[in-house]
């Protein structure tokens, strides 16, 4: 394998950017929907394969602007995988949207081009070995998703895109101020120029940085990137953006983009942790995480739109993940990493199912969707399995990570475990309650017959992976996650 990689004229890590970049340019010229969808799948698949090669051989961190270490490779492999399966789902989903005339055929070039541009910006954000470059990548990802959310050009879609845009821009602006402060803190120690913005150098010298400046910087970074993670009370853009955009984009938003912002926060958390005099970032993350968890848990009961329901569920789970990383320590960090992986896989699978549900029933209103397991057994039961997984029912992977998190919290901070368990129960109750109405009972009428059905493959692959993770985690994966958990401190 590695011998083969040496034959390539370029480094696999550059291919993570070059493949989506080239594909974006080509797809922007292809107006045929079928060809475009296939090329989109092909490009995403190739990107995923290159991401896999990084498992075997990593580039030298001293060269270039990109780097790979134990932490970001988890995000890269997961991200490119979800990007690939979403492109398979997107092919059939968008085909149907064009058929029913919801999406104008003229937008197909735009859609596919933007899909790859989004993939490019997320890979750049995850691999950048430079705080400034990472910021630019997150800004690019924000812009592309804003354009995608407004794709249907309806009033609701444009309003959602606008709200996302304004809140996202303010978040990004605050993150930039935090980034500048990090540079200011690093400059007296490392010296002027590029070195003072490089992750690997920053972490190595963080102990000597001015702790006061680091503290102020972290507050801005937390608010800035926290907006993109969707932590309450900075979450207002998230439900609208998920509900009004095309469903593949909802899947990518929940499965990937939130993770990229979270990754940025984790990097800065590591930076602060490396300085003995700086404030501990943990309690901040724990507080925001708990607020998100409990707030979203209650909001789940009030939702009437099915995509909005699962958007709030994303806020809840991002809160849980932030809580886990905020607690820190090997066990909680392990639970956080596992939970993040499981959430990405499960939530994108749920959006694959929800997209099809909305298409066959012709509505996103929860009240108008009933008896799915009777009218569409495969789809209905997949949704049941997916929601059971996201609600944290055994034997799925999310049960496992939540169990780990709760037990480690009970062992270390029993008082914090009380609101944590309370939030988990509230949220699970809401989801299971909503699910019974959607999945069982007398079926509501469908607008399209089951003749031409989109591919169930991505959905089933994701759910099987989540099920396997709940039953058995392979030894090397556990060892690797434990290593990363130690790295996160």
């Amino acid at each position, binding site marked *: 394998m590695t011998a083969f990689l040496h034959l390539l004229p370029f480094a696999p890590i550059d291919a993570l950017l070059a493949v989506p970049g080239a594909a974006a340019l080509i797809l922007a010229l292809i107006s045929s929907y079928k060809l475009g969808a296939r090329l989109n799948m092909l490009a995403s698949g190739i990107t995923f394969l290159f991401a896999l090669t990084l498992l075997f051989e990593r580039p030298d961190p001293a060269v270039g602007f990109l780097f790979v270490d134990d932490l970001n490779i988890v995000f890269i492999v997961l991200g490119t995988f979800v990007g690939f399966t979403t492109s398979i789902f997107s092919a059939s989903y968008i085909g149907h949207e064009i058929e029913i005339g919801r999406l104008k055929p003229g937008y197909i070039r735009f859609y596919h081009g933007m899909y790859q541009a989004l993939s490019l910006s997320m890979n750049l954000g995850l691999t950048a070995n430079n705080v400034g470059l990472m910021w630019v990548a997150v800004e690019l990802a924000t812009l592309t998703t804003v354009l995608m959310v407004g794709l249907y050009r309806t009033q609701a879609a*444009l309003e959602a895109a606008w709200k996302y845009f304004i809140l996202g*821009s303010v978040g990004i602006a605050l993150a930039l101020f935090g980034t500048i402060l990090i540079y200011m803190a690093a400059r007296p120690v490392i010296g002027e120029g590029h070195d003072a*913005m490089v992750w690997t150098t920053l972490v190595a010298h963080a102990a000597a940085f001015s702790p006061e400046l680091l503290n102020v910087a972290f507050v801005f970074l937390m608010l800035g990137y926290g907006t993109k993670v969707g932590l309450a009370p900075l979450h207002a853009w998230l439900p609208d953006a998920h509900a009004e955009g095309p469903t593949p984009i909802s899947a990518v938003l929940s499965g990937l983009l939130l993770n990229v912002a979270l990754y940025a926060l984790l990097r800065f958390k590591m930076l602060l942790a490396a300085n003995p005099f700086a404030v501990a970032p943990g309690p901040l993350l724990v507080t925001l995480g708990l607020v998100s968890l409990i707030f979203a848990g209650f909001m789940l009961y009030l939702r009437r739109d099915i995509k909005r329901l699962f958007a709030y569920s994303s806020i809840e789970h991002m809160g849980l993940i932030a809580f886990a990383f905020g607690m820190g320590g090997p066990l909680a960090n392990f639970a956080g990493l596992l939970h993040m992986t499981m959430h990405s896989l499960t939530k994108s699978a749920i959006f694959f199912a929800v997209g099809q549900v909305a298409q066959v029933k012709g509505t996103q209103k929860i009240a108008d969707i009933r008896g799915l397991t009777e009218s569409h057994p495969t789809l209905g039961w997949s949704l049941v399995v997916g929601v059971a997984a996201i609600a944290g029912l055994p034997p799925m992977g999310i049960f496992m990570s939540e169990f780990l998190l709760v037990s480690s919290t009970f062992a270390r901070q029993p008082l914090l475990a009380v609101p944590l368990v309370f939030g988990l129960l509230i949220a699970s109750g809401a989801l299971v309650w909503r699910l019974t109405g959607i999945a069982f009972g007398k079926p509501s009428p469908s607008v399209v017959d089951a003749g031409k059905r989109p591919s169930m493959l991505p959905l089933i692959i994701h759910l099987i992976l989540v099920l396997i993770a709940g039953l058995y985690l392979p030894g090397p994966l556990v060892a690797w996650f434990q290593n990363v958990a130690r790295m996160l401190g």
Partner: protein
Amino acid sequence: MERFSLDAAHLLAGGMVLVSFMMLYQNRILGLLNVFAAHAVVLSLSVAWQAYIQAAPHLYVTAAIALILKAIIIPVALHHMVVRLGVHRDIETVGGIGPTMLMGIGLVALSMVVMLPAAAEADPIAREDLALALSVILLGLLMMVTRQNAISQIVGFMSLENGLVLAATGARGMPLVVEISVAFSVLVAFIVIGVFLFRIRERFDTIDTQALDDFREGRE
């Protein structure tokens, strides 16, 4: 000379804070746009001065972008838009101008209290510039919060962004400043285009491109 260059840098950065306050009490959109153009001119002067004292020629590019795009093109474009759409009426402010100004003073005090001790180890230019830049950023945020009109929210965002550019250029030797200011200009351009689309939508109750598409389909 050293003393003078410091004083001039602080004077220009302080001038931006002052112009930010002037924006807070503008109650007409056209007046607001003029004051914003002045804000961008002061920013451009300030960045050019930093380029001179740091002997960093690439910062002149940032100064030029600020002058051409933010002091001329965007205010003129918004001006045309406002006049053509007939929205140059009074701006409603939340809580009135007096309380807003008081809050603004509080925010400036806050940024001084936070930044001056925190950045004590950085060199003095950066330390005070940073405090003034944070004031500009917070005043921009305050403006976005207190205004309900889309255009004045955008002017608030752009003044916030001016504060960021001021902070980035004040940080001696920071790489990627030009790239970041270009990236931000793209963002601002998107915002302005977004407003344009929204205004059209509000007037015709639909985006007219969609109406055109429907029309074309009908003829085919």
